[in-house]
């Protein structure tokens, strides 16, 4: 409710103060003992852009954010903000607002004092501080909670105050370190929309770390998928989903099925038909290759002589996901839930490819 009233405000309480700062992370390496948390990580972020760092645990996304914030020093590489190398600048002088995964409000201060803390450090007058804190709390829909202490606020409210606190200092870059992961699903979805709308309204350069692909895809202008300390692919969410460049991205973002295929002239043979290969064909091995298929790229039709057998069914709402056994692999296929009753377990089906091309990769050793 609070969110709705906030998002429908005709005039923003706090206007965009700047167009945000461009950020360039170049060849960052960060070692923890023998582990290479960052292994030549590079990323360029345009002013006012929201980039999500997405990847599994241990991929280096939080380390990258902490290096950008100044909480970790890279072993090599550079961090440039607004064209200035800030690699050696301590965190407190980087002018970056940060919202943390765990609740980080100062327990001894009420919401208003928390928001005003950064302004107090910048020696703003008490009256101006209070007014600015009030504006920001109104911006996040918590104007009525200004005098409450953190223990009197819910998790979602605390994170909104933390967001207001980070924005209060008018940072060059806003850093969000999985700020929604401790919240329940409904609050998370609300806050996700609120953060995105605020970020766009203030046009602030933002880096958002998450392991939740739905969050990354729905919020970010571009998503940087990370693996083993490197950027696997940086692209707009739609392009990342539709055109993953590597097997890792295809399998980590969205749902994919691996199917062994035979390479033929001009493509690969799949479901008895020829399919074009997407991307770089030169680097592919001649044999032992798999195609990676999205559930919506495959169609299933009931056929008594079909080579696929339905062995699993999951109801997902509008669609139902079938697991179809095919040539030793299980291929996930989405059908409309209205039609799902036709596909009983054990039903034989014919599979056809509904996309024009497929992503092909070397076979997994354990596959």
């Amino acid at each position: 409710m609070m969110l709705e009233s906030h998002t429908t405000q005709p005039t923003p309480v706090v206007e965009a103060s700047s167009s945000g700062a461009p950020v360039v992370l170049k060849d960052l390496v960060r070692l923890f003992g023998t582990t290479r948390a960052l292994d030549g990580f590079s990323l360029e972020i345009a002013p006012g852009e929201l980039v999500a760092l997405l990847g599994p645990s241990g991929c280096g996304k939080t380390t990258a954010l902490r290096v950008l914030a100044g909480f970790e020093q890279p072993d090599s590489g550079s961090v440039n903000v607004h064209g200035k190398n800030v690699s050696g600048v301590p965190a407190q002088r980087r002018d970056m607002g940060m919202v943390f995964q765990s609740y980080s409000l100062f327990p001894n201060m009420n919401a208003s004092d928390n928001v005003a803390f950064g302004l107090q450090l910048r020696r703003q007058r008490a009256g101006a501080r209070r007014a600015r804190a009030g504006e920001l709390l109104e911006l996040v829909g918590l104007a009525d909670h200004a005098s409450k202490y953190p223990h009197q606020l819910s998790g979602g409210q605390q994170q909104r105050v933390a967001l207001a606190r980070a924005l209060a200092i008018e940072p060059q870059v806003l850093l969000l370190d999985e700020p929604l992961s401790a919240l329940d699903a409904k609050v998370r979805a609300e806050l996700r929309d609120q953060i995105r709308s605020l970020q766009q309204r203030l046009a602030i350069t933002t880096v958002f770390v998450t392991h939740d692909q739905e969050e990354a895809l729905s919020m970010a202008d571009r998503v940087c998928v990370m693996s083993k300390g490197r950027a696997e692919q940086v692209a707009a969410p739609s392009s990342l989903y539709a055109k993953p460049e590597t097997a890792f991205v295809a399998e980590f973002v969205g749902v994919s099925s691996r199917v062994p295929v035979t390479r033929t002239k001009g493509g690969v043979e799949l479901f008895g038909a020829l399919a074009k290969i997407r991307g770089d064909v030169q680097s592919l091995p001649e044999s032992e290759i798999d195609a990676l298929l999205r559930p919506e790229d495959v169609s299933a039709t009931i056929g008594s002589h079909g080579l696929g057998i339905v062995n699993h069914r999951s109801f997902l709402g509008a669609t139902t996901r079938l697991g179809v056994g095919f040539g030793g692999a299980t291929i996930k296929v989405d059908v409309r839930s209205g039609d799902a009753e036709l596909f009983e377990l054990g039903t034989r089906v014919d599979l056809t490819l509904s996309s024009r091309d497929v992503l092909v990769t070397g076979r997994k050793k354990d596959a």
Partner: protein
Amino acid sequence: MASVVTDNIVDFELPMVPLNLAKRRRIRWGRGLILWLAAAYFIIPIYAALKFSLQNINGSFSLSPIAAIPSQPGLAAAFFLSMRLAFVTLAIVLFLMVPTMIYVHMKMPRFRRFMEVVTILPIVIPPIVLILGVLEAAPLWLKASPYLLALVYVVLAMPFVYRSLDSGLGALDVKTLVEAARSLGAGWISTIWRVLVPNLRSALLSATVLTLALVLGEFTMASLDLWETLPVWIVDFDQTNAHISTAVAMLSLLGTWALLTLIVSIDRSHSRRRRRNDV
């Protein structure tokens, strides 16, 4: 069949009721007895000392030993020396331990176990050994100063201060709070002073209470270092006038209690003010 079972239960339960009550009563008496014994353990010596200090030779009671306290030679100096040492010790130990403990909690959590063992050493090593070692090693100018005692008291207070701060810091997400403060532009001093210290209020008060109590009651080291602190004065004066000396001991006990109660009540009133804001 069912009714038989029900009857059996009823028959069986009836004698159980008085048995349970009797058992409960026994437990209550047992607990009360332990509590009274513990109270007696503390109260009897205090009562005996109070009685001794206020009782005349003929058996009557009078407040004259208390009235005579302010005019006793050396008492005021001993009292102020003890207070000075207590506050200097407190300042040094907090100045050393607060940043150290924050650093250990943030950057070297594995070091906590080692710290725990190290801070127990002053309890394990007898005070007489400690002070003799210190007197042997200290330079002459330091030996001539009463503040050498404060330095040794810092070591003695460390186990108590360590434990208070460790539990206080353990209740906070120190790393996140520090990083949040730093991202907003706070340097280390600002972070410690404005963010961590206010949230360590209870831990700091408990460390303060324990340190003050320790220093105000310490005798062995002060005596061996030849400084007349309040406990040393009480023991020395005991040979001149045991009644007045005991009365001073009683007053110092009451004074320490009053100080500790004041500190604790400040903390409580602060917590109450915070709670009053709760909706």
